[in-house]
């Protein structure tokens, strides 16, 4: 697997043992934190810098981070928390794992700066269950930072105290949803909470909490070191910075690529070595399995940023780019994705619990030559009746792939139903 470094996230890759504290420091790491602590930079100034950077959440929704931070009641007396969402389980996404593996201190420094800014004394990093070695590596990195005086009481003599702990998940996609994640840290099953109240007012243990994705936090040190303006200029207006794209599927060189937001998809595909075996591009899921699929021709006209992909009718999501060549049957592809959402629904809301099962069974029977003429309308209707009617966005996440496939590849489904077999 290829990893292409860049200025923000993978800025230590050229060093041997890139994950070590000494490597990170030699690339300018922890200098932003030191400066903030020495100068006692006001929280408002930091939030303003993050707003200038146009950093948008890297966990899927692309919510502006500076704005999210401004919701936190910083003056609220009592405990407050920052929480990192490293529960990466959205099919296609594998970037946070490599951040933690190759540059864990960017995440740690980002979380400490967030803790300082938001008035939190503790942070938790929730790590996806299936990557136990990464959890162990993060435990070592946190220890290293603690030993160097970056974590703990009275950090670098500043009077500011902050502790950071890793929490290991154990196999539940739904815990990537931020309130399910909080429930999970509290030692419960990961069922999303009703909102409002939002985590900024009622979060972990009922205390004000800010949750960001791993890559979001790991972008903060660069922003505070080099300035929000410089980060913004790495990308394009409203889409600041570089972003990691996890390219998987039918490419010659799957991997993580740190590139500027706004990079043409065609360039990214070229970096990834083009389509495997010289075959033809058919379709791309541009932002993780929940993002609606887009035909290759449309993708070739897109740039990789939130606005361009949204305009094309999908979403940049987590930056997971699943590439499919001409050999892929879209009915089969959707069958597997629909099974995933059915399997991972937490079961709290009827439209999601029943609807995901229904969608899976219908796509399954179409794939197995037992589709009925009315099935596509049935799928349209079930998907439409889930979207927007559930406690959390998993319902929408299950509906969107179905809607995307039926929009662009309806003929393949019709062919399956009519001829009881595949057209590819």
């Amino acid at each position, binding site marked *: 697997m290829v990893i292409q470094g860049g200025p923000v996230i993978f800025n230590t890759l050229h060093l041997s043992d890139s994950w070590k504290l000494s490597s990170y420091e030699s690339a300018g790491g922890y200098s932003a934190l030191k400066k903030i602590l020495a100068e006692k930079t006001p929280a408002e100034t930091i939030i303003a810098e993050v707003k200038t950077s146009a950093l948008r959440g890297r966990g899927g929704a692309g919510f502006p981070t500076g704005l999210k931070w401004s919701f936190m009641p910083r003056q609220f007396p009592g405990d407050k928390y920052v929480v990192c969402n490293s529960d*990466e*389980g959205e099919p*296609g996404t*594998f970037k946070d*794992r490599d951040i933690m593996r190759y540059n864990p201190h960017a995440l740690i420094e980002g979380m400490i700066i967030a803790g300082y800014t938001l008035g939190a004394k503790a942070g938790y990093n929730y790590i996806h269950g299936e990557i136990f070695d990464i959890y162990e590596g993060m435990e070592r990195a946190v220890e290293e930072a603690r030993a160097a005086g970056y974590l703990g009481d009275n950090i670098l003599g500043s009077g500011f105290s902050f502790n950071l702990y890793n929490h290991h998940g154990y196999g539940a996609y739904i815990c990537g949803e931020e309130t399910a994640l909080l429930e999970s840290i*509290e030692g*419960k099953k*990961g069922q999303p909470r009703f909102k409002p109240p939002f985590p900024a007012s009622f979060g972990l243990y009922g205390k004000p909490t800010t949750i960001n994705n791993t890559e979001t936090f790991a972008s903060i040190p660069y922003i505070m070191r080099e300035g929000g303006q410089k980060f913004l200029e790495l990308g394009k207006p409203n889409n600041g910075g570089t972003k990691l794209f996890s390219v*998987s599927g039918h490419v010659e060189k799957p991997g993580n690529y740190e590139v500027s937001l706004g990079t043409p998809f065609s360039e990214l595909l070229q970096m990834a070595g083009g389509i495997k075996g010289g075959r033809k591009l058919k379709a791309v899921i541009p932002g993780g399995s929940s993002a609606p699929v887009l035909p290759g021709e449309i993708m070739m006209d897109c740039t990789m940023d939130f606005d361009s992909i949204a305009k094309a009718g999908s979403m940049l999501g987590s930056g997971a780019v*699943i590439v499919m060549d001409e050999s892929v049957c879209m009915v089969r592809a959707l069958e597997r994705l629909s099974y995933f959402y059915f399997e991972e629904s937490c079961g709290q809301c009827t439209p999601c619990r029943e609807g995901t099962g229904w969608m899976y069974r219908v796509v399954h029977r179409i794939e197995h030559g037992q589709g009925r003429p009315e099935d596509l309308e049935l799928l349209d209707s079930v998907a439409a009746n889930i979207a927007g009617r559930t406690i959390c966005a998993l319902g929408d996440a299950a509906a969107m792939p179905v809607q995307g496939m039926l929009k662009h590849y309806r003929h393949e489904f019709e062919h399956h139903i009519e001829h009881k077999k595949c057209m590819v």
Partner: protein
Amino acid sequence: MLSSESLALIDKEVAKYPAEQRQSAVMSALRIAQVEKGWLSNEVMDFIAHYLGMQPIAVYEVATFYNMYNTQPVGKHKLCVCTNLPCKLMGADAIAEKLKKKLGVEFGETTEDKQFTLVEGECMGACGDAPLLLVNNHRMESFLNEEKVEALLDELKGK
């Protein structure tokens, strides 16, 4: 019920959370107990409930909610193959078929000699390394092909 090593590891997890939030360590405690015992019997879960000051039912709820806990006995080596779409595009189905054939079991089954349990997994956040599988939850085998599967089975059989 659990070894002193396991208890020391659990205590380390408990220390990460506010004193009145021992329950937060339940996921780690179950993981650590499972590494020692191979699976989570009611006795083990009751012990953890008592240790963390939880109702046993609250521990069962957690153990049955998350996919990686074994609430039934499993073979000595649990192999979990990711078959989600990105892995499928890279040949996960052929790997799964190979394993089923070699072991003579379907997904969700254990071999008669109790050496292997084969299960189907969801995305492990490692799709760039596809196809892949997990051995007993904590060891990932990446970029699989048929030869690697053979070699892995041979290695595990010897253990």
